């Protein structure tokens, strides 16, 4: 079976990060995902480097790059658009909108992440879409949602992280609040959009009733604050930045070691003697340190006793020393570490995909693995811009070669003639 969602048709109007991660999960599970891209330039994330052909240099982003061919080999586009088909279409033209509505009539799901109001201005409001297909699931992902006073605010990941409450609790107390390195608000919102879309699809298939999902990235962030929000709600006490130490904990965080950084997690109090033993310091067995509260009170002293061992040893050795003693130690993996990680290699996690421009690269595979017999996931490279214009219009709408050519000549659609 070619994927768990074989036969599900997805009309993908997403671009950049949050929307494409949602539809990547759908295409990965075998849904027939047709990504509608802007003529000439495509998804903006195509212009985001680094590029396979660009050597080591990170080039400027899309707003600053003018002219030239559409890049086909940017790391972000390649990863976020695996197993999708690309249909290059001018949505702003009358004929383009008509084609889009024909596609929407055939689709089970439409996912978009335009700024709120963007679909309306294209004449593709939810009311217009549901008129041609009442069972259609329309998933709208945006920074702040389709309603509310901040609806039209502009935001980058940085601002979403701040307004979502995650930033206030990340970083050192005496320094500026920090965002994480990866755009995890956008990616996480894309994940949740996938779950929301699946729920609405199941409902639509049972009842024939489609609907619109309104998913806000900032709101997603507020949903995963866990105790950082709850302790204020419960007791009025604010949660603050604690750097690399766990909140209200000691010997619980990231520490330097000989070849990088490790994560020490002291675990429950009855396991503390194991930590002391691994660190090879009798002083750590001092009764002052045996309880969580005691360690917190003497956190600097505890750190000072642990550091000599840590500085002398390598991250993987420390990680395994902890794990072999039943402690949940970790280490800070680099990209190289990830590609070489014995656990991931043993589980055949990675997939190699060959791309006509980018060549063969190693991609992280399925985030979750159902048993082999199900063949839940499909793995195909990301599409070239307009690579599937003709085939998608043919398979979804039965357009002939002549019809496609005419639309190309009129500038409504574009086809990639191969690289």
């Amino acid at each position, binding site marked *: 079976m070619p994927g768990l969602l074989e036969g599900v048709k997805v009309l993908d109007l997403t671009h950049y990060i949050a929307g494409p991660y949602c539809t990547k999960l759908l295409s990965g599970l075998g849904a027939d995902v047709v990504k509608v891209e802007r003529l000439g330039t495509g998804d903006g994330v195509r212009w985001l480097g680094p590029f396979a052909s660009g050597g080591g240099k990170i080039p400027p982003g899309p707003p600053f790059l003018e002219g030239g061919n559409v890049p086909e080999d940017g790391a972000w586009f390649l990863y976020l658009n695996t197993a999708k088909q690309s249909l290059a279409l001018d949505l702003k033209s009358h004929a383009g909108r008509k084609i889009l509505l024909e596609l929407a009539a055939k689709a089970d799901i439409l996912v978009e992440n335009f700024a709120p109001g963007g679909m309306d201005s294209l004449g593709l409001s939810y009311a217009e879409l549901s008129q041609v297909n009442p069972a259609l699931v329309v998933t709208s992902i945006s920074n702040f949602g389709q309603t509310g006073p901040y609806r039209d605010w502009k*935001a980058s990941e940085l601002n979403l992280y701040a307004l979502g409450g995650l930033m206030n609790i990340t970083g050192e107390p005496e320094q500026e609040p920090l965002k994480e390195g990866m755009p995890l608000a956008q990616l996480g919102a894309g994940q949740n959009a996938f779950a929301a879309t699946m729920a609405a699809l199941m409902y639509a298939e049972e009842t024939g009733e489609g609907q619109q999902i309104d998913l806000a990235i900032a709101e997603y962030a*507020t949903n*995963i604050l866990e105790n950082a929000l709850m302790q204020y709600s419960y007791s009025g006490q604010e949660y603050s930045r604690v750097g690399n130490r766990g909140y209200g904990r000691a010997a619980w965080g990231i520490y330097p070691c000989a070849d990088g950084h490790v994560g020490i997690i002291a675990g429950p109090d009855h396991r503390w003697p194991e930590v002391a033993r691994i660190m090879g310091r009798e002083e750590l067995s001092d009764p002052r340190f045996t309880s969580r509260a005691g360690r917190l009170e003497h956190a600097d002293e505890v750190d000072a006793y642990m550091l000599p061992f840590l500085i002398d040893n390598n991250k993987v050795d420390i990680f395994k020393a902890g794990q072999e003693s039943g402690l949940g130690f970790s280490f800070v993996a680099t990209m190289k570490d990830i590609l070489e990680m014995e656990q991931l290699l043993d589980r055949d996690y990675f997939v190699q995909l060959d791309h006509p421009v980018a060549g063969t690269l190693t991609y992280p595979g399925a985030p979750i693995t159902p048993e082999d017999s199900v063949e839940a996931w499909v793995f195909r490279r990301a599409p070239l811009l307009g690579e599937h214009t003709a085939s998608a219009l043919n398979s979804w709408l039965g357009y002939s070669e002549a019809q496609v050519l005419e639309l190309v000549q009129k500038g409504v659609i574009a086809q990639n003639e191969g690289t």
Partner: protein
Amino acid sequence: MQKPPERMPLKNYRVLDLSRIWAGPYCTKLFADMGAEIIKMESLSVYDSHRGPVSPARGIAAYPDGEPGEEPWNRNGWFNCLHMSKYGVTLELTEAEGRMVFEQLVSISDVLIENFRQGSLERLGYTYEELRKHRPDLIYVSMPAFGNTGPWKGYLGYGIGQEQLSGMAHMTGYRGDGPMKSGINHGDPITGSHAAGVLMAALRHRRRTGKGMYIDVSQQESAVALMGPEVLAYQMTGEEPERRGNRSGWYAPANSYPCAGEDRWVTIAATNEEQWQRLTQAMSAAGLADDPHFATAEQRRENHDELDRIISEWTISQEAYAVTHLLQAAGVPAGPVLRGPDLLADAHYKDRGTFVTVDHPQVGPKQYPGIPWRMSATPGRVRWPSPTLGQHNRDVYGELLGLTGPEIDLLEKTGTIGTKPTGSRII
């Protein structure tokens, strides 16, 4: 038990939920939000550690006003924000009677989910093969830290560890400094959300084929899946990603800037030329527009320290919300760094109903994060507060399994079920 909701996407599905802490519970939270019937099963000797210790010290902020009360395990905010609209039961799987009841529960459930240490359920004799004897089309989701195979399968992992082992922490941190953890256990909700979507796809597959399946979740793999672009970038450049603090590799400025008040900050990002121009106009007094040091994006990136200094001088005497409103009106991405009280009072979140007030019998009315998205046809709502330990034993074992009153009494008498912890759990 309550009647299932009329219009909710997953109202026809029952999930037997043995998961704990956050990764598994976030998955079943999303299911509960979508109307599924979640039976959260705990042991009286080892209940979900998010409930906290049996006898915690006073003053811990996770309890209402820092007061643990008579039954602290029912008053912990960590737990109570993740299990709303779920049923709560207890059962001791080490007792023969408990096993019989468990097998009956399996037989009426569509899904079994657990995130024990790898192999725990198997050691109790419950392999997928064995479970399927009780429910042939069962979907079994097993989510240990590193999956159910491989040399690390028996290793332990927490959300904080997955941030590190996925490479997320490697990329997070101030420029020139070491890696930094996030403020949450970020690996957990990532796994929970992935699992929720895939589990729905599996249920849909079962609806079409009649077949259940075994789903092996490695929390680590789930986290690495979000690192894909950087894994590819490394292969392209041969260079590890830099820690950039709040800066961008593509545009400038981007940072959090100090504002009036203690620990008050505003984030500002000019992601393109137009936004930069608008920012310089909004801060016209600073003279940025004519400064040749900042004429191009490349120069702004190169002179970012100087740019940060100038912007900080401009923000430091202003309120974070005021700077935000000024810049947003000019079309520049900006946002205050919101703290707990700010979030609950924020006009936008109030307008959207992002946080909901739920009245818990042992806590009283408090605010919680609600359903994380809006749906036009099946809006749903938080239906009831998180269950106290064993709160729904009688409902579930009586109404769903058809046990009689005396049979349930006997289970209580033998300690197979109950509402009071038997261990002195320490976390």
